[in-house]
């Protein structure tokens, strides 16, 4: 990957934003120029040489399975992110993991994956991963660490581990939990703390209030006909996002089309897919939750038409009515910016509507219990103890609090008070550098572990390669801590399941079956429904106090922040009202909370709703930006208490006015060569709740700085300018065939007697998650070009997801009538391809099955084809973008050519997969069947929006899709007759709430 050089913030100057950066050498000096010319002349004189001699390296001892070196082998495993498992198949070629596919049998994957799982391959092979045990700034060894630990363990034995603390992220691994329990038994005074920057503390507290115990919600959207999200972006790539997206698609395809109403502060994927969305600040949303609860009688009172009911807008009454009508078949989901009270109320609403156990399941959660003290187990409590010198050994597993702890916790400062801090992590990050010991962690694909998926399905994390560096698993470290014996992680994991299954005779068989499947066959918690009613019955009574003591959200939450979070009166006096905003901290669609910052694929992946790459921004509504007199690219300073950060503004249509959303995970100081210094760090503004957990929102004061920042956006224009690039049809008109031009053509028709490959993309199913882009990047060896090159429009993605905003002003402010539309655009493989006519060397030609092929070894780089392509899907290697290091070669797909500088490239319909399927079929003496070829984008899509196949076969899925009346051709007037066509998006006018009054 090319190192992503950031463009520094530019002083305000004559250059307009988006004008880009000048091309070429910055300031060619005469001598340097002459030197380069002499060097190139000398190189030209030496001429070309033949290919380098290659060696064939067979096995010394062939594995039992007799694995062919050129055949991929798939291992069922899991990618663990934020504590929860995503079931995947790891494709290995010659023993090297090269690609991730979803595990079709896993209930939370169903064959699809998210962008992070796809990018985990690049993470595994990241050259910046930690490679050695570090003691301070010196390279050390595991043996030295063990000796140091043995000396400390003697001390734990004497005082029961009083000074020993373990800090982890969210943990679902049964083995890790068992080991933590064993450690706690061994050293009774040791404490476990949990820190996850994205952990929704309010949801946990709210669920505790509702159930008396920690539970997490799991929505069964396939059973829901009506879904209401309150700042909960269910379709986002979160622990359950893949399954939610698939279920929601199923619910929308069903006889009675499911409806989705989204309330959002910052635009999200759920809002883009919604039948109607409202932009609201968290405070307004809190008030809405209370009104809804009252209207539905979920707060203990009878559903009476009281005073507040009369004030409610008409659409709100209608929303409540529709929810009541869909009782038992609807779901209300609350998100992280809501307060604990609101979360409890939403549970009550779902209980009142009879959704619990049907569309909303409550799954038991294992979290550090607050039984020792009110604030035990949190990061704030740990930092407090550290400052007081109560902690002498702190073991941090896979967390990075020196970077991602809220600013007010001042964790890095507290860390200096700890004599022996140990950090186990994939990278020697900010925390690893501040610790006495940094230990490299084995990647998920390098060592054994286990984890639960969000729905409770357990799975074994199976390694696909031996550790590349000195990494060890957390299980090894905890085993060492508890017993002073270093046992392999495999033993720890097997011990857990040996005890859990309690059937020694059939253990081996069950273990092998679990490995083969990628999950452990048991009744998963989420699919039998559990018995949440027993807990909820207590809620129905009025003794819960649900209706009392609820303050408006942001007042309660931001007001209770500790340590100078609220602006002081003097600030408030000097700052105009427009400058006081509510900042909400949101996970970034590409780097999550910062752990993925060093991943070039993710950094260059356009963020779905802003199309930004290599950056985050302070997102705000156009009205807010107008009031502040700033525009996209203006740098503002945001202050909360003592902390101040500067951030470039991005004006985001559809954002709630009065709020600014700040994506987390940027401004890393020790992420690696790719992630360092990209974007701004929003954590310093973050406050903590009284228990010391990070808050999702803060009050900030904003001022202009006069500076400008250059964004690298993958798409500058989001208006369709009145054209029907993305067609939208009404639900009742969805069966009416779209008008088709079918203009005459001068070109003679060509027959394709064997196969005629084609693709259909359902824009009603597409949620704009970008998984296809990154899956294609992994499959087809697509290079990363860096921010400057993206700013020049040279990104290399073979399939891009275009974003359009179809704007119509709403009648009331806040009621957005604007639609957000997504459109994945790969090469269209036109029958009459304009690119082929202009190539002077015949490098782009049709093949016998209608593929528009690009022959790299013929291409001389004129770029005529790209200029003549109406869809702008051809990508040119302006420089040697493809990295040629050993690590880059290790994760490259061996079935796809790595393109060199000066060569045009584009989507091939995953030619290598067609070839493989063809050869396998022909060897068996049969023809290819529908489903034999699954392109990378088709395989990864959570909603199965992309269908690929043979259009000559009338029974194939793609032929059936193309027969739909919604089928249309992009830029049909260009008469290129593409093989890729689209299914129009469906709008459901009857679903709109404010239209009913006429």
């Amino acid at each position, binding site marked *: 990957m090319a190192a992503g050089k950031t463009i520094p913030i530019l002083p305000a100057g004559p250059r307009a934003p988006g004008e880009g950066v000048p091309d070429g050498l910055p300031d060619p000096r005469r001598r340097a120029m002459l030197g380069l010319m002499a060097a190139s002349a000398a190189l030209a004189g030496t001429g070309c040489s033949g290919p380098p001699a290659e060696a064939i390296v*067979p096995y010394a001892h062939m594995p039992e399975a007799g694995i062919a070196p050129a055949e991929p082998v798939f291992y069922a495993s899991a990618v663990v992110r934020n504590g929860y498992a995503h079931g995947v198949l790891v494709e290995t070629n010659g023993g090297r993991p090269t690609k991730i596919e979803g595990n079709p049998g896993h209930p939370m994957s169903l064959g699809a994956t998210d962008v992070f799982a796809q990018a985990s391959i690049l993470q595994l092979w990241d050259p910046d991963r930690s490679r050695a045990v570090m003691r301070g700034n010196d390279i050390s060894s595991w043996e030295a660490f063990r000796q140091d630990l043995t000396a400390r363990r003697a001390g734990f034995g004497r005082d029961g581990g009083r000074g020993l603390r373990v800090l982890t992220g969210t943990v679902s691994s049964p083995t890790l939990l068992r080991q933590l329990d064993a450690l706690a038994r061994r050293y009774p005074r040791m404490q476990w703390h949990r820190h996850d920057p994205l952990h929704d503390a309010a949801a946990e507290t709210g669920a505790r209030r509702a159930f008396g115990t920690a539970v997490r919600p799991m929505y069964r959207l396939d059973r829901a006909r009506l879904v209401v999200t309150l700042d909960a972006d269910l379709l986002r790539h979160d622990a359950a996002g893949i399954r939610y997206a698939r279920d929601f698609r199923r619910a929308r395809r069903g006889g009675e089309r499911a409806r989705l109403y989204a309330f959002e502060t910052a635009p999200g994927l759920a809002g883009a897919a919604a039948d109607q969305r409202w932009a609201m600040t968290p405070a307004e949303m809190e008030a809405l939750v209370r009104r809804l609860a009252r209207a539905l009688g979920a707060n203990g009172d009878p559903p009476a038409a009281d005073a507040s009911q009369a004030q409610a807008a008409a659409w709100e009454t209608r929303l409540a009515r529709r929810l009541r009508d869909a009782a038992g078949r609807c779901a209300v989901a609350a998100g992280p910016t809501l307060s604990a009270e609101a979360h409890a109320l939403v549970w009550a609403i779902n209980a009142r509507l009879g959704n619990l156990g049907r569309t909303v399941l409550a799954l038991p959660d294992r979290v550090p219990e607050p039984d020792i003290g009110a604030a035990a187990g949190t990061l704030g409590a740990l930092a407090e103890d550290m400052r007081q010198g109560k902690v002498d050994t702190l073991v941090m597993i896979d967390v990075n609090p020196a970077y991602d702890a809220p600013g007010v916790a001042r964790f890095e400062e507290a860390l200096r008070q700890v004599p022996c801090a140990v950090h186990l992590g994939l990278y020697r990050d900010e925390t690893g550098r501040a610790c006495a010991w940094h230990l490299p962690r084995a990647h998920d694909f390098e060592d054994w572990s286990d984890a639960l998926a969000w729905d409770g399905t357990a799975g074994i994390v199976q390694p696909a390669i031996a550790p590349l560096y000195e990494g060890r698993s957390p299980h090894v470290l905890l085993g060492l801590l508890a017993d002073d014996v270093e046992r392999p992680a495999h033993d720890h994991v097997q011990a857990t399941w040996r005890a859990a299954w309690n059937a020694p005779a059939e253990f081996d068989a069950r273990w092998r079956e679990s490995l083969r499947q990628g999950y452990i066959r048991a009744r998963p918690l989420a699919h039998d429904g559990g018995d949440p009613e027993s807990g909820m019955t207590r809620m129905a009574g009025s003794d819960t106090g649900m209706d009392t003591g609820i303050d408006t959200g942001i007042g309660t939450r931001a007001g209770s922040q500790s340590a100078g979070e609220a602006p002081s009166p003097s600030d408030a006096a000097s700052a105009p009202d427009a400058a006081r905003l509510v900042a909400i901290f949101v996970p970034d669609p590409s780097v999550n909370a910062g752990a993925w910052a060093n991943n070039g694929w993710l950094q260059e992946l356009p963020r779905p709703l802003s199309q930004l790459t290599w950056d985050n921004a302070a997102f705000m509504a156009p009205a807010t930006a107008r009031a502040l007199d700033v525009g996209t690219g203006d740098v503002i300073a945001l202050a909360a208490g003592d902390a101040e950060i500067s951030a470039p503004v991005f004006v985001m249509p559809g954002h709630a006015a009065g709020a600014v959303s700040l994506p987390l995970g940027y401004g890393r100081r020790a992420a690696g060569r790719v992630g360092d210094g990209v974007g701004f760090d929003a954590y310093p503004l973050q406050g903590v709740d009284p228990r010391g957990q990070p808050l999702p929102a803060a009050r900030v004061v904003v001022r202009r700085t006069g500076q400008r920042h250059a964004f690298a956006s993958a798409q500058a224009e989001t208006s369709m300018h009145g054209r029907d690039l993305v067609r939208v049809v009404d639900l009742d008109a969805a069966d009416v065939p779209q008008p088709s031009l079918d203009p005459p053509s001068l070109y003679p028709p060509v027959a394709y007697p*064997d196969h005629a490959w084609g693709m259909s993309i359902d824009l009603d199913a597409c949620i704009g998650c970008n998984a296809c882009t990154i899956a294609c990047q992994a499959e087809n060896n697509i290079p990363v070009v860096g921010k400057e090159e993206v700013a020049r429009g040279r990104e290399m993605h073979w399939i891009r997801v275009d974003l359009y905003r179809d704007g119509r002003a709403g009648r009331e402010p806040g009621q957005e009538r604007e639609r957000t539309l997504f459109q994945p655009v790969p090469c269209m493989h036109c029958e009459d391809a304009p690119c082929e006519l202009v190539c002077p060397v015949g490098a782009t030609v049709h093949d016998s099955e209608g593929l528009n092929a690009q022959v790299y070894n013929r291409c001389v780089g004129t770029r005529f084809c790209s200029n003549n392509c109406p869809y702008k899907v051809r990508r040119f290697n302006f420089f040697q973008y493809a990295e040629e290091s050993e690590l880059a070669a290790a994760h490259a797909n061996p079935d796809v050519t790595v393109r060199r500088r000066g060569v045009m490239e584009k989507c091939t319909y995953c030619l290598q997969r067609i070839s493989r399927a063809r050869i396998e079929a022909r060897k068996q003496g049969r023809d290819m069947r529908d489903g034999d070829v699954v392109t990378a984008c088709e395989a990864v899509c959570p909603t199965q929006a992309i269908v690929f196949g043979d259009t000559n076969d009338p029974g194939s899925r793609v032929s059936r899709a193309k027969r739909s009346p919604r089928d249309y051709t992009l830029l049909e007037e260009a008469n290129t007759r593409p093989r890729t066509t689209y299914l129009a998006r469906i709008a459901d006018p009857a679903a709109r709430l404010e239209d009913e009054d006429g």
Partner: protein
Amino acid sequence: MAQVFDNAATLCVKLVLLGIAVFVAATIAIVAWQMNAPVAAGVTVDQPIPFSHRHHVGDDGIDCRYCHTTVETSASAGMPSSQICLSCHSVLFRDSPALAPLHASAESGTPLRWNRLYDLPDFVFFNHSIHVAKGVACATCHGRVDQMPQLVRHERLDMQWCLDCHRAPDRRVGPPDQVFAMRDPRALSDEDVAVLRRLYRFESESRMTSCTTCHR
């Protein structure tokens, strides 16, 4: 009137013109030589162990698939692991100094490094298994290895050679049971061709000669 160019200047011009002509000719010659070199037939390379196909195939009659185990299932024909060599050589010629690298490899687990003789460019994707399944005999491309004490590249590995066969596969293939036989290809009668065509159901010429068949 004196000559505009004196003799020295004329000579100079002639030499420059000659020099240009020689340079162009030399460039063309070098380019032609370089383009042919990597794929020329009749080339051989030295190996870490002086392995003789003539001895193993010709004298001992070992089937190709005994060592090239994945030729029927995979794109790569597969090279024998050290363990496969040792299935005989743990007993036969055990103390031969020529086999020392083999024993070292088996003991240390470090693979042998054979030098590649049949090397296709990286943008060409050749698959052994489909060729074998469609009746292309080993000897068609690799020659009579049973007569080669040291392996010699039998064919020019250029695209013209590939296309000659892809344009008329039915004339170059043999019956399925003769694929691994070491014998010179037999001339096919028209009847044979008709039978083989029915048997293998070759794809159309346009398919077999599409760029995408071999290049991805």
